[in-house]
């Protein structure tokens, strides 16, 4: 599970999705919850450790990603 916080903007969400679609993972579920001025995006997925790490690293490069939490490590 990857959990991220982004501004409450579909443009920001679109940029998150644009990164996700390049990852070699199987996305099982994506939940987007509005929390005040932000969205919390929870991504459930299956994938190898390397491919999940790739996705986490690429997501964390987005300036819109205000916070990212990937399982036991907070980036």
């Amino acid at each position: 599970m990857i959990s991220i916080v982004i501004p409450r903007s579909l443009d920001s969400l679109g940029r998150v999705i644009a990164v996700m679609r390049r990852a070699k993972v199987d996305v099982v579920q994506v939940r987007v919850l509005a929390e005040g001025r932000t969205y919390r995006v929870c991504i459930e997925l299956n994938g190898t450790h390397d491919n999940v790490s790739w996705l986490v690293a690429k997501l964390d490069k987005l300036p819109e990603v205000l916070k990212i939490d990937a399982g036991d490590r907070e980036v």
Partner: protein
Amino acid sequence: MFGKDGFQETDIVGVVTPITKFTYQVRKASEAVPAFRVAYEISMAGRPGPTLIDLPRDVQAAPVPDREDEIPVNIAKYAPPRPDESKLLAAARYLVEARRPVILVGGGVVWSGATLEVLELSRLLLAPVVSTLPGKAAVPHDYPLYMGPAGMHGRAEADAALANADVILAVGTRFSDRTWGSLDVLAERVRSGRVKLIHIDIDRSELGKNVKPTVEVAGDAREALQRLVKLVHGAPMRDQKYLSWLLEIRRKYEEAMSELTASTKAFHPWRALKAIRRAAPRDTIAVTGVGAHQMWAEIAWDVYEPGTFITSAGLGPMGFCIPAALGAKLAARDRPVICLDGDGSFQMTMHSLALVRDYNLPIVVVIFDNRALQLVKQWQLYIYNKRIIATQLSSRPDFLKIAEAYDIDGVRPESYEELERVVMRALRRDEPLIVDLTVDSESDIVLPWVKPGEWLTSAMLPPGADVKLVYDSD
């Protein structure tokens, strides 16, 4: 107006989302100023990248309010991480104990301004330096241990240095397939322990992305190398023959090219570049387009001052040369700027020549004119069974008439001496010039050539370069 499909309505934010570091559509006038500020900061922070602001017409027409709205982004994350001391220690140990260490420098070394640190480390370790194509701008080519750029059309001695190293220090590079040919071969060598790979990069997402290194260090190249230099102690245990072997490869390649190009019909790019280099002051900023001429420039153009070679490596955008050269001249009006272009690449943006006179930006453009999209044609010849399709161009347009149309002197030289003379005169007088250099397409095969997916030692070399790129330590 959004969503009404008005005139020229395009979802530009959607279009550029996957290819920008940041993009933002300003919805309120109070966001406009902070949006520009944030976009600029993000573009320059950490690893640089493009940003885009979409400024709708109603916002453009609105008065600037006193109040500024916050653009919610996290820029702090781009601050370079402090290099991990224990990892640098491990890296230093591998480097000192190596028999055949190599330093591979990428574009990150240019951005970081780490040239002096690279050279100091190379001297301390007696380690040859190899670069990527963007990294070519990082190291003065008259530094004796610089072997040149490696890769698909890199120099043979650089390919050999990388392929036969036992420890590789890769700095500010993303492990492009164009540099390595086969990343699988490298990955296997690192996995088996045959090669120790140390990777330093400011961008954490690059570490282990294509090849898992033995030691990975997140951090700014300059800072990491400064610390690494302090950790390198002890006499290096070098294979004495290795450097001599690499330099012998260089000598044989140069001899073979010299012989090959002496009898070539018309101009040969390799020899022409040497003539142009002689004509150009050391601090000349050289810019390239994309294509065969670019690869020849990778092989044969000597860079003496860091940052004076501008080329687009990752995306290969034809038409890059003229706009980039104009930009370089605008930024450094006191420096000579030369655009090394191909006829295909030139025609993609030649309309930008209007700015040469309009803004007084005297650049020298040399068109390596083989009337072909030569690099694609080379692939068609050697990889696609000689199926030449849509890569041979006609004799139109006449580039001297294009020069005249833009009020720029044009010349079609008939000898290397004339080429050298006209380029030198234009650069010294700071006058614009367009040189139409007739190149014979049939003999314009860029070598060395590591075919896609192949390992560096399989580079195809010019006839007469009788040398193997696999090192025999016995």
